[in-house]
């Protein structure tokens, strides 16, 4: 019998990534230019804060619309309640007749985030870069695509996880956090309240997934649903790239780690094998309770099950066929 090979970490050479402005901007790179993560691709004015006003809002004066207004100035009324400008900015009337108050735009620098070459410049809106990544394939994720700094918690216990979250609170907004082996519902909720961009963990509960979907926050289970630990070789790889600017493609279930160049690593192979014979000594990932997500080495193959020597504790356990997958690691 042969079984499929699961590749959790792969190299992605000659990849393309589009870095886009929120609105039209000024591009400061040229075609074929070599870029690094901190290379400025261009800049565009961006209002970082926006206040959508109630449909009953009445402006103070019509002259105010599109004029610069200082913070604290009265901009209008909602019923009898006076509304003050929450920041320096402009009041604009939308197509549907409602009003929005935009913060005074500031220059936003769009950085490359990756090593590579400028392949294409699309109008004044985006830059396409040819680059290379290490891809970590996730078991499941919500569908958002985003980028941010990867902050790695050191596989702590559930209690310490909350401590870490609060400790890093000033630095996690918009970033992508690797929480550990398991992110509980409580921790996921708190992370969303603190404004994280995305959450990664070895396993998460389905309930957390539903919560993240509802709040449009990226959430990924690396190995599956429930208390499913992150396999050591994947954690080692993630840890290696702590604080790196990374990308997640939720629709593809992939965490993409930009690389200056791709070198061979012990954590992944470039073997083209798609299937392997089920025989003693191959490495497998278990997909059966209570060892779901654990990895081990096949010790013995029976007609409808296999015996696996677990990597974590050396114990040998029986696993029903086909509740396992071959792993592409040495």
């Amino acid at each position, binding site marked *: 019998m042969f079984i499929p090979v699961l590749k959790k970490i792969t190299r992605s050479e000659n990849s393309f990534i589009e870095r886009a402005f929120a609105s039209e901007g000024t591009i400061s790179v040229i075609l074929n230019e070599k870029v690094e993560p901190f290379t400025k691709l261009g800049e565009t004015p961006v209002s970082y804060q926006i206040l959508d006003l109630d449909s009953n809002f009445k402006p103070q004066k019509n002259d105010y619309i599109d004029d610069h207004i200082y913070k604290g100035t009265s901009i209008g009324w909602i019923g009898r309640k006076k509304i003050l400008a929450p920041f320096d900015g402009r009041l604009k009337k939308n197509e549907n007749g409602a009003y929005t108050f935009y913060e005074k735009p500031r220059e936003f620098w769009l950085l490359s985030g990756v090593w590579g070459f400028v392949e294409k410049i699309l109008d004044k809106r985006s830059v396409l870069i040819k680059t290379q990544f290490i*891809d970590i394939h996730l078991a499941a994720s919500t569908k958002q695509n985003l980028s941010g700094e990867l902050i790695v918690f050191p596989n702590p216990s559930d209690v310490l996880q909350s401590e870490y979250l609060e400790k890093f609170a000033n630095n996690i907004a918009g970033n992508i956090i690797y929480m550990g082996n398991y992110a509980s519902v409580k921790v996921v909720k708190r992370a969303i309240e603190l404004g994280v961009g995305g959450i990664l963990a070895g396993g998460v509960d*389905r*309930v957390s997934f539903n919560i993240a979907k509802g709040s449009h926050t990226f959430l990924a289970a690396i190995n599956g*649903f429930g208390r499913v630990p992150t396999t050591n070789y994947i954690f080692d790889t993630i840890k290696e790239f702590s604080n790196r600017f990374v990308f997640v493609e939720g629709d593809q279930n992939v965490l993409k780690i930009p690389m200056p160049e791709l070198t061979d690593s012990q954590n992944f192979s470039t073997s083209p094998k798609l299937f392997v014979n089920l025989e003693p000594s191959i490495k497998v990932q278990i*997909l059966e309770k209570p060892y779901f997500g654990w990895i081990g080495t096949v010790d013995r193959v029976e007609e409808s099950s296999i015996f696996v020597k677990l990597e974590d504790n050396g114990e040998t356990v029986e696993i029903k066929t086909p509740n396992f997958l071959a792993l592409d690691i040495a």
Partner: protein
Amino acid sequence: MPVCVVYAGLSCVSILIVKTPDDKIQLNFPYSYSDYFSGNFKNKKNFVDALIERFFSENNLNKTDFQFAFCWYPEIPNQSDTSVSSISLNQLIKETTDFSLCIFVNRYGIFTQDYGNMYASLNPDTSNDLAQDVVEEMNLASNSYVFPQIIPNNVFDVIDEDNNVRFINIEPKEKIIITGDRFFGRNTHESPILAFDLIKKPGVFDFRIDTKNMWIMLELISRMNEKMGEILSANTDFAGGTLVNSPGGAECLVSGEEGSDRLLVVKDNSIFVLPLNKGSRAKITVKGSVLNTTQKSIWGGELGLVIDTREKTNLASFKEIYTQKNLKMWEEAICSYQY
């Protein structure tokens, strides 16, 4: 021309190569594509192509010598080669000329010639004070979605999963074939019980259970070469027998070919199995509290004569009697015969 037929299902893939009716090779692969394989396979079509490549190479066969036909679940992939015969499972079942009722079952639902319900939604609950067993159940359902090949490794999870389809009411015919990913490669005693649960109407039914996706393979072959399909169908063995559904209890007189008579009295809420060897014939006369007196000639089979006196048409009461204690008793009735 030799043929190769392929069924690419939710949780398994079967490939049957037929050079002549006596020279055939089958691969029953207990895995199928899921997005989790994206590091190695681009899509389901790519997964199936790689599998065919591997199977042909292992058997020193050349793909160009064969005429191919595919059946896909749930739909034919966009990447499929339009010059090769491909059909979706739903369409294959709708277009069958088999006069038996085909009940196709996977973990998401059931298809028959006149019924289709393949939607099982994941629990959308967001509450953080759910009972641990509810959380576990939701996680198991989600893991089964991500890793479709998983077979539950304990009887409680099997029952939970089967409950997605168990209480669906379908109109049976006299002859029934039960197939699909749910029965693929699973010869445990929960499988025949699920098959009996699916046939709810009182009556006498000739049933077969397909654990190798053979029904789909034979349908694909018949569409390409009717004569070859007929020969292969005649030579294919399915586990089967006769099911008597008689809610409330039954009295059954079984007259064997050799002239021996045996009277069976089966009380309410039971499953009773009488071994009847394959190829042997018998005549039964059954009377029940709901079932009118029925006489029928029956053939033996791997599962013999099964008399099921459970009330299954009233779904509310059926759910009520589906207790661990009862299930154990029903399993014992089948085990005592099978094992």
